């Protein structure tokens, strides 16, 4: 009986196909049916989609196919996270290099205005390979430090690919080259908008949260007001702020001199600040409320003063929840800051909206991809910090 059952499960285990691997395989195989790259005569012309073998030299096509086949095989059959991670990473690298190679291969000698961009097949395959990597990382149970290292390595590899010129024939890089100065200026604007408004929200939201925690009567009204602010669509909030800030700029001496205007950075900054207040205040209250009653009672009974109790006991214990609030606000701000460009606030949105206006897909991507990458990196780093801060407090 036992032996039969054991033999049965043993056979089932070796022949079992990884279910998530099936999804990954569908993405990777499906990607081959789609165009890998698009060739356009100019940056706003409509393009022709080229499949993998049309977009790349035969040897490169063969290499990519071999790597993808190996990745599919591992995704379907291997149970070892390290192997899955390695093949996923290899597939990502192959796709990244192939995209660059397609650029070099397809670039016509007689038309410097031609543009080559990765097409749907590339993105679908990239998504499939990313799923393999993400899934493997989760299964590997990387610690917080490990995740930050992995992020740093990924960032360094991408920076290396840019610097090496492997992608120099790709349209998004061409768009970047044409406006490198503006790009970095707007990048800094974007970070100032997202991180600066968050810093202001921490400076104001933390004391407000502490007040709401200490004084019950303040709590519900404050949270309700912030909840309402949060429900106002970002465009509407930007618009609402134009009038009062414009009035302040006109009528308050010195306001104009320090950069307060009805449009531009000031209303965008203020709107992002208001959006970040809710996660900051709410998480401060929730974090402080979550500190065990027995611990607070003991702290009072031991003779800690109100201030000592707050800074030595309650705040350190609420820290993981506070950091979660900061993470939510920062990731939200990085995304929302993109919209600031509509009222002249700057940031990556400048390229996105220019691109939309010109129907230049590559320019749209130049405005859209950096905030996505930034938000992802911020989330990974803050998640790691939250995990570290929560240790030893079980």
């Amino acid at each position, binding site marked *: 009986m036992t032996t039969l059952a054991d033999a049965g499960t043993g056979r089932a285990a070796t022949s079992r196909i990884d279910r998530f691997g099936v999804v990954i395989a569908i993405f990777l195989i499906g990607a081959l049916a789609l165009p890998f790259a698009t060739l356009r005569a100019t940056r706003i012309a409509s393009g022709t989609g080229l499949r993998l073998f049309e977009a790349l030299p035969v040897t490169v096509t063969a290499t990519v196919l071999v790597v993808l086949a190996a990745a599919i095989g591992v995704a379907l059959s291997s149970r070892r996270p390290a192997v899955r991670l390695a093949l996923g990473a290899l597939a990502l690298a192959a796709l990244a290099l192939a995209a660059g190679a397609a650029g070099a291969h397809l670039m016509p000698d007689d038309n410097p205005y031609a543009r080559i961009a990765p097409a749907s097949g590339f993105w679908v395959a990239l998504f499939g390979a990313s799923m393999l990597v993400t899934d493997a990382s989760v299964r590997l149970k990387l610690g917080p430090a490990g995740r930050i290292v992995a992020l740093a390595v990924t960032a360094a590899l991408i920076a290396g690919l840019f610097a090496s010129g492997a992608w120099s024939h790709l349209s998004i890089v061409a768009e970047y080259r044409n406006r490198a100065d503006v790009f970095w200026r707007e990048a800094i604007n974007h970070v100032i908008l997202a991180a600066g408004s968050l810093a202001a929200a921490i400076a104001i939201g933390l004391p407000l949260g502490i007040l709401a925690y200490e004084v019950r009567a303040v709590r519900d009204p404050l949270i309700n007001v912030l909840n309402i602010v949060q429900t106002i669509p970002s465009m509407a909030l930007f618009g609402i702020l134009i009038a009062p800030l414009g009035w302040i700029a006109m009528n308050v001496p010195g306001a104009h001199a320090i950069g307060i205007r009805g449009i531009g950075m000031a209303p965008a900054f203020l709107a992002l600040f208001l959006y970040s207040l809710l996660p900051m205040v709410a998480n401060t209250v929730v974090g402080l409320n979550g500190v*065990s009653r*027995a*611990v607070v*009672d*003991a*702290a*009072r*009974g*031991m*003779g*800690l*003063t109100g201030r*000592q109790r707050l800074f030595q*006991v309650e705040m*350190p*214990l609420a820290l993981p929840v506070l950091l979660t609030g900061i993470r939510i606000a920062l990731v939200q701000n990085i995304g929302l800051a993109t919209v600031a460009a509509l009222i002249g606030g700057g940031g990556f949105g400048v390229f996105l909206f220019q691109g939309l206006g010109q129907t230049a897909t590559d320019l749209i991507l130049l405005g859209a991809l950096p905030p996505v990458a930034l938000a992802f990196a911020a989330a990974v780093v803050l998640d790691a910090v939250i995990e570290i801060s929560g240790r*030893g*407090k*079980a």
Partner: protein
Amino acid sequence: MIELSHLTKVYNDTAVVNDVNMEIEAGTITVIVGTSGSGKSTLLRMVNRLVEPTEGRVFLEGSDVSTMPPHELRRSIGYAIQNHGLFPHWTVARNIATVPMLLGWDRRKVDARVEELMELFQLDHGQFANRYPHELSGGQQQRVGVARAMAAKPALLLMDEPFGALDPIIRSKAQTDLKAIQRRTGTTILLVTHDMGEAVHLGDRIAVMDGGLLKQYAPAADILARPADAFVDDLIGSADRPFRYLTLGKVRAAVEPGDAEGAPLAADASLYEGLGELLWSGRDAAPVIDAAGAPVGRISLQGIAGRAARPK
């Protein structure tokens, strides 16, 4: 040493503590016992001003506690609670050092005191000093909680159901240890519990509270022998009364001359333990030896039974 005078606390028109007067002698253990909602915890918390009385005063060594800044008052009084309330982000050593650090003792004196206390509470310094509370067992956490309360050598220690979260075996040992430590340090202890057994085991005097009123305040033996009213009688439990009474007496007190068969009993054991031993081994009497192991006589079922009867 502690005097509670006309102490009253009113919440929403209800007197949770109603005109309580008590005097607590220095160097003794006083246990406040009552059901939940009797006002016993509120009474305790008025001593270190975690709750401010609506009326009445608390005097510590003759001085009115309401004249002292609350945090300074609390640093001079030990405080241990149910579920210990240890600071989860601090090590065992840092937890124990809480009050000495608040009082600004110098580092070396703090370290020495922490080591001394950990030894007193049977916690190996090398093994536990740098652990975090969640790495300890319930019994160890509770000991750290009491050690922390005693760290600055307070003359008075307030304990609110300190053993409430422990399982019965560990609780019994913790009670015995606390009593031994109290005898050694001479700390005055005011302890709140709902368990009459614990009150009789620990208390030199017992205060019974019900509905905010102090029903009876007397030495443990008096409470058992002469409960003031039906409520106190109920709290003791009529079936348990003779056995509770026996826990108060020592075998030594019932020794009679002569000898007996079988394993000897220690003169220091309680009559309750002596009775249990005789019943279980099926003997009418057992020899008694002192701490040095020298025979001092015998103890009989008859002798114990005589001490379990209601005193005349």
